[in-house]
């Protein structure tokens, strides 16, 4: 095993597994220049790295945190093309392990389940470049996710960003509320709130 391979392995949580279900995710057509965002969605990067790039721990171990990544544009492209051996990140280039151009490894070196998983569909070179560019310019080094970034990703037809509106500072919060309100008009249930009954097993029942 090469040193590079070892550090790759160390870079991810040991129990990482498949997150490969790239999909035909139904998303509005991107504006020109948004190719990277479109690929990020359609290749289901979201499935593990989340919309924010936070990735994170959890059920299947951690996907890399792209907001905190130290990788360069070239390294990110390489990771997308080659995936991560012995981990969950798929290789989005179909012949990644044909001739040793990925980490100096070939399929023969990666027998016994060390091969990164295949995605549902591979990406063309231009798509790899576009999504890597998107990660570097829109996600890497961006700090905590914000309401505005969330809305830029999802648009305003969902409540998925509300949680960031609540977390952000007061000024942003007001702006957020307006946006949420505007989106609410398209879905009558967008403003429903939980009205829970009191705790049925509280020691002193104050209902009545």
């Amino acid at each position, binding site marked *: 095993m090469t040193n590079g391979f070892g550090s790759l392995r160390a870079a991810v949580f040991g*129990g990482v597994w498949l997150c490969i279900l790239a999909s035909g*995710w139904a998303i509005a057509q991107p504006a020109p220049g948004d190719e990277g965002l479109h690929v990020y969605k359609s290749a*289901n990067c979201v499935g593990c790295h989340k919309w924010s790039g936070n990735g994170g721990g959890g*059920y299947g171990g951690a996907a890399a945190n792209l907001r905190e990544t130290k990788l360069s544009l070239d390294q990110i492209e390489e990771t997308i093309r080659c995936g991560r051996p012995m981990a969950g990140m798929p290789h989005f280039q179909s012949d990644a392990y044909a001739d040793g151009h990925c980490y100096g490894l070939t399929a023969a070196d990666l027998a016994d389940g060390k091969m990164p998983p295949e995605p549902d569909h591979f990406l063309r070179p231009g798509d790899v470049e576009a999504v890597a560019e998107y990660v570097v310019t829109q996600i890497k080094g961006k700090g905590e996710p914000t309401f505005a970034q969330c809305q830029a990703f999802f648009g305003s037809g969902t409540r998925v960003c509300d949680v960031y509106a609540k977390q952000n500072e007061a000024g942003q919060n007001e702006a957020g509320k307006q946006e949420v309100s505007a989106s609410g008009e398209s879905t009558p249930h967008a403003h*429903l709130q*939980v009205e*829970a009954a009191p705790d049925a097993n509280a020691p002193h029942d104050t209902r009545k």
Partner: protein
Amino acid sequence: MSRTTYAAAMIALALGGPATALAADDVTPDRLLKADSDPGDWLTHHKNYSAQRFSPLNQVNKDNVKNLHVAWTLQLGGIEGGGIWSHGGLEGTPIVENGYMYVTDGWGSVTKIDTRGGQAKVLWSMDPKTDHDWAGAVACCGVDNRGVALAGAMVLSHSLDGRLIATDKDTGKILWQRQVANPDKGEVITVAPLVVKNLVISGVSGAEYGIRGWIAATDLTTQKEVWRTYTIPAKGEPGGDTWKDKYDAQAMGGGSTWVTGSYDPSSNTLFWGVGNPGPDWDPDYRPGDNLYTDSTLALDLDTGKIKWHYQHTPNDAFDYDSVAENVLADAPVHGRPMHLVLEADRNGFAYAVDRDNGSFIWGLPFVKKVNWTKGLDPETGKPVEYDPKADIQKYNAAVTPTRENPKTLICPGNMGGKNWPPTAYNPELKLWYIPVIESCNTVTVKAEDPDKKPKPRDLFTGGGPTETERITGSVTAIDVTTGKEVGKHETPYPMLGGLLTTPDLVFYGQPDGKVAALDAKTLQELWSFNTGGGVSAPPMTFTSDGKQYVAILVGQGGAWDKWFIDATPELKAVHPSSTLYVFSLN
């Protein structure tokens, strides 16, 4: 006038229609209580309030089941993804009343189908416009919905984004809806509602996202919530001291309730299973028994007050939740008549508990391999290694995931010996059939830091599983009069869909698309058909125009293809789909 009648009348008034007498087909509380009296209907999620999933229909029987064939199919929707999910799936049980069928897809759309005349005629479809991104990002285990409930002239359903929705049975229009769960906190809903008297009961999913679980009852007349029982007691409540940490772990203690419960009218008691504690695989984070996770709860229907509980895996380190249905059965055990609650737990053991007081009757492993404990104490049913004084339960310490033992192979694997797919109980044969996942998998603990609590909607699991072993399945039969296993029909794939039993048959579906019927006594396969899609829903049966049909939803649901597929590599070839299959003779 019953309260439901009253509710229907009020709705008619509100809609500007005449408050006339009820239509003959309104589903009154009395009809639901006697759900077995019309054998051709399937009126409530588990067929009857006892959750037996037994149909007395016998036009299809062991002599002729070999002639069963497809009568009709219907393509449904809801296959699209959202959040972290690339597709939706089907886990629902169709409800049938008087020849009309109601099915849901993974995103909660409800479709009413007229099955009369031997074909499917879609009458309406109600799309709840579920917020895919809001809900799908915090649905731990897939885009799923397990079906509807009927009440009066309403169809009750949940949406993944946490709503309870009442739809007009005739028109398909939404009459009212209320937010029950809050996806901002990581709460979503997949469970089919349960209607009892004038209440509709909801449960919640989200123990992987740091929720505090609950069961909630909504009044069908006022549309207000009348009680909410938290499955994790607050400090000062009974059981609150089973969370012994100093940082309020119970506020994020888990305890989901995403499988429909059962109801005993004789004692007015609701039985509901409670899921795993959170963080799933870091028991050191939450010293204590962690009530009421991994427990069966018996609740007073009218108030939600807890009457008793029975906990299966205290201080669970395995994700062995007890969310499964609790089957109510009256049977003699070693000759003595008993009122039983039957539960097949993810921890690999099947339990019979006295439903009048929660005391243990019998228990046995129903999977081929259990390695986390040597077995159950014959008096209490607790794992023999259980130490009520210990903060952290070690069980078989070589196996139990802890911070000291952070990578370990557990059997059953974390999907459990049986997951949510329902069992079936044949009251004539006194046999109970369990859809089994024969499994082990590897768990890696990653300690959570109490000083760095996760943000809302972040996963909170304390580690994760990996698939290192092949996983298979079985249909396992237990004689409830003895608590002994009497048969095991092994299957090449895990049981991810659940069971139906009729007087002499057991039906199941498999994740590779196979649907099959077994002899109820011998478990010999008598019929099978491959639907060409992944089955993760239970079969059911009904009559239409007097003729018996068997129905099953086909469309790979749940989390298997995302999290567990390496244990069944052939299933990588199964594509998402969304189809209703209906079978008949001739």
